[in-house]
């Protein structure tokens, strides 16, 4: 049998945490590694439960989801963190992607899509919404340009894909527009994410996040 994907849930709403846990347990391809109402001892939890994917609520008491992602990404870069949010608040979503999250899901997302999202997140990367794509472009343009020599910027192809995404094109439409396969699109997006994460640990971006985004 294929390796089950170990999923941890961080969610302060009891009912949601419970239902997510039950949902994950109900499907044999997933295994619930742990469910926690807060992220205070997230690193200890990870050491004990060894999750592959973490579902993380953005708004949690004590340690916010964004801070938790930063912690996890610094110590366990291989763990895929997917943000969950009630607000489709672009600033927070973007901040968490910069902090190391591989994707986000709105809480209203249909349950079946949640499971898809986990699978997707585990395998490749996560979708980028048009507004997030726009932010990535402007971030690379304004904040990272001065340190371009030290850190990789976006390639022309990546920029082109992002520009398509800002117009609201789906991955499939982007693939058509660029005459490449959808997997190539996913590959580029994964690269974009990685570059974003690299940049986001740099001083400039941390500052940008503090001042402009968070």
């Amino acid at each position, binding site marked *: 049998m294929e390796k089950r994907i170990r999923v941890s849930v961080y969610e302060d*709403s009891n009912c949601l945490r419970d239902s997510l846990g*039950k*949902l994950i347990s*109900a499907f044999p391809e997933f295994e619930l590694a742990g469910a926690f109402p807060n992220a205070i001892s997230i690193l200890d939890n990870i050491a004990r439960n060894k999750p592959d994917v973490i579902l993380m609520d953005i708004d949690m008491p004590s340690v916010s989801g964004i801070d938790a992602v930063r912690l996890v990404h610094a110590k366990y870069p291989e763990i895929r963190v997917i943000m969950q949010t*009630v607000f489709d608040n672009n600033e927070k979503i973007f901040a968490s992607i910069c902090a190391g999250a591989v994707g986000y899901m709105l*809480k209203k997302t*249909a*349950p079946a899509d*949640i499971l898809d999202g986990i699978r997707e997140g585990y395998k490749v990367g996560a979708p980028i919404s048009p507004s997030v794509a726009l932010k990535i472009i402007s971030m690379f343009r304004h904040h990272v340009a001065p340190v371009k020599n030290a850190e990789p910027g976006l390639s022309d192809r990546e920029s082109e894909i992002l520009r398509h995404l800002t117009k*609201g094109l789906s991955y499939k439409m982007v693939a058509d527009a660029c005459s490449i396969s959808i997997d190539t699109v996913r590959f580029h997006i994964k690269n974009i994410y990685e570059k974003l994460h690299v940049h986001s640990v740099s001083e400039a971006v941390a500052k940008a996040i503090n001042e402009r985004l968070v």
Partner: protein
Amino acid sequence: MIRALCICLLLWLACPVTCWPQQHHLHHGLGLSGDDVTCLCKDHNGFLWIGTSQGLNRFDGSNVTTYFRHSADKGSLLNNKINGICEDTSGNLYIATAAGLSVLNLRTAKFINFRDIDAGSNRLSLSAGVAFVVYFEGRIYAGIGSGLLEAGPLMTGAQLHDWGTIKPGGQGVEWTNNGASVSRSGLWMLTSSGLIVKNNSRFLSDGKLTDHLQIDDDISAVCSSGDTQYYCCPSSFPGVIVYNSRTGVPKKLGFKELNDERIISVCCQPPGKIWLATSARLYLINEVAHTLTACQVGGAPGLRISQLMCDEIGTLFIATSSGLYFGSYADQASGNDTNAWQAITDPFVPRVAITGIKKAGIETPLPAVGNLDVSYKDKIVSFEFAAADFLDPGHTMYAYTLEGYDCDWNFCEGRTIASYKNLPEGDYVFRVKATTRPGNWNTPGHELGVHVYGPFWKTWWFPALCCLAVGVLVYGAYYLRLRQLIRIQEIRNKISRDLHDDIGSALSSIAIYGEVAKKYSSEKTPEAIPVLNSLQETTKVAMDNMNDIVWSINPGNDKFITTIERLELYANEILNARGIRLHFRIADEVKDEKLSMQHRKNIYLICKEAINNVAKYSEAANCIVEIKKDGRNVSITINDDGKGFCGQATSLGGNGINNMKSRAIELKGILDIFSVSGSGTSLSLKFLL
């Protein structure tokens, strides 16, 4: 108080020489407080102060003002029996009365009374009466029972010279009422046992003052002229001895007619005229010609003369038991004496003074110093003024002006009052001048600064304060309103947060539980699957709707662009799933417009419904959303290139389109849906921002 006075003209027919041609008589019947005149004094304004045994009077030649003791008013005269009057150089009149000393401020017309006084460590009672009061070399001297009282102006720092100091062994001596006279080189005071002279700090009462003047002689009358001549009337000599302190040579002027007569008052009018009075008779001595002329005063039988006084312009005042006689003696031409004529032919310019002020009809004292303050409430302020003229009484002409209000002088005769009504706020100067001969004014006359206070609402600070108060009120109202709005906003945010956190989570959970239930029941009870699908569907709709509401009440979303972004996000999600390409064309000028909560909710929901319809029914390839703005008009069009429909729009989509219409009405906008079968549908929404 002011009474017109008729002047009696009495021609002296019995006397062979007319030495007293124009004789005026002031008596009780003409306004004098009493007929028994005891003492006289002219003040610096030229007014004559007349002491009687029944009160004090001020006389300007025409009008008499009386002052009495009022037992109820402690600020009135101390006693009506007046023994002596003098004035200092600061405008205070000292009145020796039978019950103490009164001091009258000539400006404010207020009395300060001294029934007793601190002299060194002793408290001296003055209630037994003060015989005289004189002003000599800056000091006030008052004759009292225990000796001579000396004090500074307003009776400060009083000290007593007792009889032992003044006249050794002079026990039982009494001062003569009104029996003091002043020259520059000495103060001459009469007692019941001779004369006492204060010279520098010495009191001389015994021995020879000069070769010819024994001051222990029984001197009954003295007077001085200038600073060199003294006129003494010892009882042992029938006439007057003229003593010249410069030459040291006394000149005796004796007349046999004066044998056995006791001179009670002497008065000189230089050059060369000496008036003598016995208790019943008046005599004029021509010093150069060595002649004596007898004059009779009045016609009343038993008349007693108490004092003679001459002024510098040739008026003789005679205080008698039947009132005051006064007049010019200058018509008396006696040979070579031309100087006497000179005195009267010189143009006489009377001095003038403000004698009273009324504010709103109420007597007000003149301010002791500085300006007169008048309130706008007083409405009428009037100034009374008078000029003393004893030569030709009743023919004084006055001119007055209020600088800053009057443009020119106002002239008046007889009526010596100036009234002003409703003076505007400001500073003025009231000036008055007088003359007896037109063109010969006593310029600059008398002046008094007047300040009129306006009502407080006419001051500069009042409108400023009003503005401030209005500002504070407006700000306060604004602040309260702002706080109210903030409070409402806070409540709104809290509700929206709670909806999100609790209801949102709960709805999500229900959907998830549904999924779990579907998973478990798919094998055993597959008929439950559609029910669970419906449950999930309904939950999703509920979540969507709630999301829209929460979004629309969030004040952070008040810009048009946030509505557009949300719409675009939604359109992308729903249209991409159906393979419809979305084209968003937004005019830049709408992006920064602000939308109210109601507006953004309605606009968003209308467009959402329209896009939903495009996704569901149109089978289009492209959907074009266009937002334009012209002035305040905003138009939103949503076009597709789908199959369109025939007939009424309402027949399609049912409730959806009705909802859109009613939302458009709420917006006060116009909603049009136009479709031709086979060539797409066009929706247009127009409204005012």
